[in-house]
């Protein structure tokens, strides 16, 4: 069982559209001209802040679970005498003594609270408790292309890394139980802890780059992360024809670092059309982007076969 994670650094490069296309391609009946070691896969949408994969896979929800993030400090007003020891000790400006009903009492700013509990230890009256917070949900759904594990984090919540780890773990367990050869993860943008969680344990990271100044810059950053964690990687260039010099720079970058370039996808309005239709690009169109994605999928299979 292998894990492939699709990343980018920069947002909006086309990770989700590509993942949906891969899911569709994997689920096609194998033919003699296209024998495939991967005909079933488990899907994970690890972009828990802004989960879009479900918009093109038409999932049927099967299970829903609450997700508890970190803890929140909660003050018991009856026990608090407004001494301010908590305010002094908190390093996140998350608790302060305010006048309420004429009495000074400590009040917590929930969005700022880090969940470290320093205030609970400092409080001489033990007036503060740490309360676990439900900050989102995770789901197991069925799609026409395989099971999908996805999540929704409440806007503004913390611990997206923990939620990413959780949905990946659930996907992995199902894949092992039911002998799926591949777990395919749609990764989040950026390089911080949700991305680090998404990339942990991957057999391969596929980086989707757009050939703009920003896209090239951010490809170097995400490659840095993948390299830092010692994960085998490959690149595809999306919207490759919008800036040909940019595409060239990415090709040079890949060559210099010994990273495989698996293909280039031209800018194609069919991608937006498919998204609006709620379908993977390769299901909705036979155009240039769909053909490029199909060729890339075969390259991906070859590369995965090469991993130990």
């Amino acid at each position, binding site marked *: 069982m292998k894990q492939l994670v699709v990343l980018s650094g920069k947002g909006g490069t086309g990770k989700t559209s590509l993942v949906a296309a891969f899911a569709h391609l994997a689920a096609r009946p194998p033919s003699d001209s296209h024998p495939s070691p991967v005909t079933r896969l488990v899907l994970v949408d690890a972009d828990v802040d802004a989960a879009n994969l479900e918009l093109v896979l038409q999932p049927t929800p099967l299970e829903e679970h609450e997700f508890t993030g970190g803890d929140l400090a909660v003050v018991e007003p009856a026990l608090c005498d407004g001494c301010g020891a908590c305010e002094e000790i908190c390093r996140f400006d998350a608790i302060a003594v305010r006048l309420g009903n004429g009495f000074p009492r400590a009040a917590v700013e929930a969005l700022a609270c880090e969940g470290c509990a320093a205030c609970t230890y400092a409080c001489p009256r033990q007036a503060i408790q740490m309360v676990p917070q439900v900050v989102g949900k995770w789901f197991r759904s069925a799609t026409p292309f395989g099971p999908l594990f996805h999540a929704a984090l409440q806007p503004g919540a913390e611990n997206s890394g923990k939620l990413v780890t959780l949905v990946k773990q659930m996907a992995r367990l199902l894949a092992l139980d039911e002998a799926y050869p591949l777990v395919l993860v749609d990764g989040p943008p950026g390089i911080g802890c949700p991305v680090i969680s998404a990339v942990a344990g991957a057999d391969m990271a596929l980086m989707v780059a757009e050939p703009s100044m920003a896209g090239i810059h951010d490809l170097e950053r995400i490659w840095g992360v993948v390299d830092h964690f010692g994960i085998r990687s490959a690149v595809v260039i999306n919207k490759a024809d919008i800036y040909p010099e940019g595409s060239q720079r990415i090709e040079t970058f890949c060559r210099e670092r010994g990273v495989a370039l698996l293909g280039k996808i031209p800018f194609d309005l069919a991608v937006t059309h498919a998204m*609006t239709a709620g379908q993977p690009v390769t299901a909705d169109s036979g155009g240039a982007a769909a053909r490029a994605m199909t060729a890339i999928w075969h390259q991906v299979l070859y590369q995965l076969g090469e991993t130990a």
Partner: protein
Amino acid sequence: MRIVVASGKGGTGKTTIATSLALALTDRPILLRDCDVEAPNAHLVLSPQLTAREEVSQLIPSVVETRCTGCGRCAEVCRFHAIAVLGGRVLVFPELCHSCGSCVNNCPEVALDEQPRVIGVLEAGLVPNGPAFAHGVLNVGEPMAGPLIRRLKGWEFSHPVGGGVSADPVEILDAPPGTSCPVVETLRGCDYALLVSEPTPFGLHDLRLMVEVVRALAIPAAVIINRDMPNNRDLERFCRVSQLPVLMRIPLDRGIGSALARGQSLVAVRPEYGEAFRGVFAHIQQTVHGGVP
């Protein structure tokens, strides 16, 4: 006044809008802070002359061996499992540490010091004939953007003598993508949010989430539609129903796309948008100050 440019979905054009807004407001001191510390891009468009630089560190506990008795109290109080007592020794796991100080505060032997560990860097300077600029760059491999964003927002950097940063510039903050804690960190304390969206299902889906965040923070907001297409009914309807003014619409245009890809700013390739951005700013001023600059 602090204006944040945010979106929810990545790649909708936050940096395009933030940098163009900063460049278009030529009649007053402007400071653009690029708060997307994981993948900062504004400097590629603005080409600032960077003159100030500061490394940002997190404080990480370190053990004073001579005083430590191995009692394990530090490991007990740490909510993040960043400190453990094993084999009679204290082990610190810096990437898990949130620098909250609980372990230090609770050590009965005063056997924990704190040492700085660099997580990223802040840089600032001036754009020639343009706004002042600052950004943060998170070190590759560091998980937490929040502390760096906090420091960037509060950073009062030194600037060249005779040049630019006025005592009270209007600040424009370029936010990271997403809707979770780095975005909230960027939004906190700001006066107005410009939400950049695109008329695709992904764009609308993520705009909805972003609107929840700004409502929760009680920050007034408006929308700018980028890569606008004739079929934008769903997005326009959502904005109407949510009472979000749509302050600008920039069409999907291959010429614009290519220029932006090359690193040009929107107002460089389409100078006529300068007027529109000044209009956006006037609207924001009206909302925040009731017309008083």
